């Protein structure tokens, strides 16, 4: 690690910071994936977590996932709220006995010294009504700031996790701001360079935040979105129905992944509709339930696939 050039050091480079995390978890035996190519609200939605958390097979993975939260847009005016940000996600199944220690080592790798900083595991029971998932764990605090979520999945997509997977989610911008010592996310040094060569987070994302805030709150085409929701829901059900086969001695499913893509789609479209304020309180619950039903059906399909089933 001593060989890290200055522009890649976590305390001055956002991208260097990400690379160090990837390197760290690769060293722990994780496969390092690239972001999933769909819009989603959190890294948990990535099939590498949602689906891979199910079934008995060992699975260790880590990846960055751009996360879209249309409602959190602030037109680029809030120092730390974004409608698009990065999560770093680690999933290890079964959860290793030293997962907390590994997590603390990963903090050390990005420059958070536990002799200097107050690191705490504060109760946080995680539940995702849209995914039909829950788990117990903590929010991890560093000097009073929440920097990660740490969860032992108990149930995902309505299916009991057996064995349990441990999930870590790092809020990358927030952690990087802490490590770089900046108060405004847009001031993060993205590429670790100085002077004219320096690229900030604002250079990369400020315009996008402004444009997407406008889109999410004012212009997103709700007629189209309602239609897209309906279509995604229908397609998901259609693919699920079409995927079932009677195998030689057990039922199997051949299209869980494409079906689940439509579930992801429906969830994001719902978030956009919600941000546009066109879903009433009562309708809201019913939309969430509809997405959950899709997620559960996908989970059920997944555990009848090659990667999801026993043996």
């Amino acid at each position: 690690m001593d060989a890290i050039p200055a522009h890649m050091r976590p305390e001055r480079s956002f991208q260097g910071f990400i690379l160090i995390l990837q390197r760290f978890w690769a060293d722990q035996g994780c496969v390092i994936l690239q972001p999933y190519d769909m819009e989603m609200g959190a890294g948990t939605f990535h099939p590498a977590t949602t689906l891979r958390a199910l079934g008995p097979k060992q699975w260790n993975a880590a990846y960055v996932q751009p996360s879209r939260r249309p409602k959190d847009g602030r037109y680029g005016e809030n120092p730390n709220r974004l409608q698009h940000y990065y999560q770093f996600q680690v999933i290890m199944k079964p959860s290793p006995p030293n997962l907390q220690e590994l997590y603390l080592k990963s903090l050390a790798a990005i420059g958070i010294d536990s002799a200097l900083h107050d690191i705490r595991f504060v109760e946080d029971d995680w539940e995702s009504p849209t995914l039909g998932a829950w788990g117990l764990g903590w929010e991890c605090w560093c000097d009073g700031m929440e920097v990660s979520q740490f969860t032992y999945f108990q149930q995902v997509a309505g299916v009991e996790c057996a064995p349990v997977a441990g999930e870590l989610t790092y809020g990358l911008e927030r952690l990087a701001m802490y490590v770089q010592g900046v108060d405004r996310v847009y001031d993060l040094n993205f590429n670790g360079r100085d002077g004219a060569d320096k690229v900030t987070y604002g250079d990369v994302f400020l315009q996008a935040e402004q444009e997407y805030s406008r889109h999410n709150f004012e212009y997103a085409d709700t007629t189209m979105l309602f239609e897209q929701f309906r279509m995604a829901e229908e397609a998901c059900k259609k693919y699920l129905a079409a995927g079932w086969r009677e195998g030689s001695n057990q039922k199997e499913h051949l299209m869980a992944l494409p079906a689940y893509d439509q579930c992801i789609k429906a969830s994001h479209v719902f978030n956009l509709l919600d941000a546009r304020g066109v879903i009433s309180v009562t309708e809201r619950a019913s939309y969430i339930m509809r997405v959950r039903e899709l997620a559960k059906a996908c989970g059920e399909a997944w555990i009848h696939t090659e990667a999801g089933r026993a043996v």
Partner: protein
Amino acid sequence: MPDLLLELFSEEIPARMQAKAADDLRRMVTDKLVAEGLVYEGAKAFATPRRLTLTVHGIPARQSDLKEERRGPRVGGADAAIQGFLKATGLASLSEAKIQTDPKKGDFYIALIEKPGRPTLDVLAEILPVIVRTFPWPKSMRWGERSGKPGALTWVRPLHAVIATFGLETEEPDVVKFDVAGIEAGRTTFGHRFMAPAAISVRRFEDYEAKLLDAKVVLDPERRKDTIVTDAKQLAFAQGFELVEDQVLLDEVSGLVEWPVALMGSFDQEYLAIPDEVIRATIRNNQKCFVVKDPKTGKLTNKFILTANIEASDGGKAIVAGNERVIRARLSDAKFFYDSDLKTKLEARLPKFENIVFHEKLGTQGERIKRIERLAAEIAPLVGADVEKTKRAAHLAKADLLTEVVGEFPELQGLMGKYYALAQGEDASVAAASEEHYKPQGPADRVPTDPVSVAVALADKLDTLSLFFWMGELPTGSKDPFALRRAAIGVIRLMLENQLRLSLRSLLESAIWSMINLWDNQYRSVLLVSELLESDDEDSAGRKLKGRHFEHVRSPESLEAFRLRDGYSSMAFTFGDEQGVSGFELEGPMWAQARLGFSDPFAAIRELELFFADRLKVQLRDQGARHDLVDAVFSLGGQDDLLLVVRRVEALGKFLDTDDGKNLLAGTKRANNILGIEEKKDKRSFDGAPDAALYKLDEEKALAKAIDQVKNEAGAAVAKEDFAAAMSAMARLRPAVDAFFDKVKVNDDDPKVRENRLRLLNEIRAATRAVADFSKIEG
């Protein structure tokens, strides 16, 4: 005698669960020991974020031997009984049993069971794993490799190590040998996660606690709390300030650290422009830090105190700086919320309430606010409040629910309303009502006294109570999701503590009437509705269609119009095309959009009156009044002025403490008993005035005269609400009643005289009913 040390070492246990878990562990282990015949001398349990620890000292080293005689079946009894007896007692054959002769019942087998006591170490090895497996965590989880298999251990968070040692102080203790989910009990634990993470080997509680302390773990939560409070006070004092103590926060914070280190940080002065309560909520709820005030002004200062879990290598500079950054960002959000709240007038927020559902059947928050406004205006003159101010107060009282600050900190509802109302120049009483109309929230909460607040507080609670009873959503057992009990007690306290003379029934009628009236004004369709009935129509498959009869009540003038008549079982609100119409409507769009299921309003009110009577009884009993006296007063009927009920109960209680009272009660009870028996015998009552011509004895005449006098005097006193005077008038009845029972035989041979005397007894009962139904009084 030997001691037990048990430690369950895990990943971080939620702070809010630690105290109860320690208690549960102590209770479960000691209960089990006692059940095994192992009486111990003392036990103490502790919790830190990472461990539950129990020490039990003075446990016998082994169980005493057990000798027991167990009685079996009769000699020559059924074979099944005998086999069962042998099996239960472990005897090989009947030859091992004794025979006991019982002169009454014949001969029985007796088994002599001798069970040698086991070593406590073995007993512990048996009970401890069961306790771990059945531990009552509010929420528990599975983890790791084993969670894939059925029957995996669950714990609050992953369990890593177990210490279980048992032995005498003077000797090397034994390890209690057991295993839960692959974790062997042993004698190893670990120190502070960051400052002393190495393994520690321990023998017993004394060296365990001391070694932990060396390894930067304060085991006892009380000691951690003391450290936090003492250090926090010191830090504040050193700067001339004062810690704002907060027990709930202290309990939580002490469960987040094993080695508490209090540190002080500060924030920008400009944030002190935010109300203190908002600053405190921000710093406390989100950051779990204490706030600090200036003792000279009583106002918060720009300092806060955090509790770290480590002695940092830089003395805490980085930790303070980090916390300051987070608190700055939080306060900046809070200030932004507060400032932007101030830009919108409270009344401008009201239209949004039209879209917020309060309850499916009762409609939106907007409707509710209108009802409360109407009811509060009606109550205002009765409680001495200015009607216009009261209306304004009720109009604005809920508006802060839609502000940003309350959205962020729901516990500040009402209080923020007050600040915002004052900021927009509302009258002080109007502003205060925003906060006070929620009160009293619990037994310790203050009852508002400003008449405007009182009127709005009553209206708010009565609206909820009467409408929920009306649609049949009553609290049952421990379930009271809408806190109706609390609302009723609130109403009672508002009335009693402000000495308000109000008719509960008319208030409840008004509350229901508000809903009808507002709906009638807006949609003109409040209906009486029948059950769902089969009609003559059929669908295409030949099934009978169902529908309801209904009658629209056009422009009702009072609640009387909705007393349910024959053929109707409930009321409904619709968005109506049915003005003035009655008829039959099949299931379909009209009923689908209707708000159905409101019962007879008068029945609902009767039920609610009983509910109030129950609450009042509980309330008075808690204050030491006898519940039978409360019953005796309520049993008079028509008692709907709660303040008068209480005064009557008080006067009655005092009266019954006197000899006159006791004797009169005895006399009345005697009269009652005789009447009861004779009424039953004759299957009739003995109402009506006695005939003076039929009196034969002086005592009869004297009693009749006394009753007349007392009736008049007591009646007059009650009319003046002077219950003490009514009671002393009543006392004068006593000698006549006593003399009557001494000298007069009620069941005279002449049936006419008998009847007349029974009527006279009935008059005693009637006279005493001026103050209470004496038959309900015990003793």
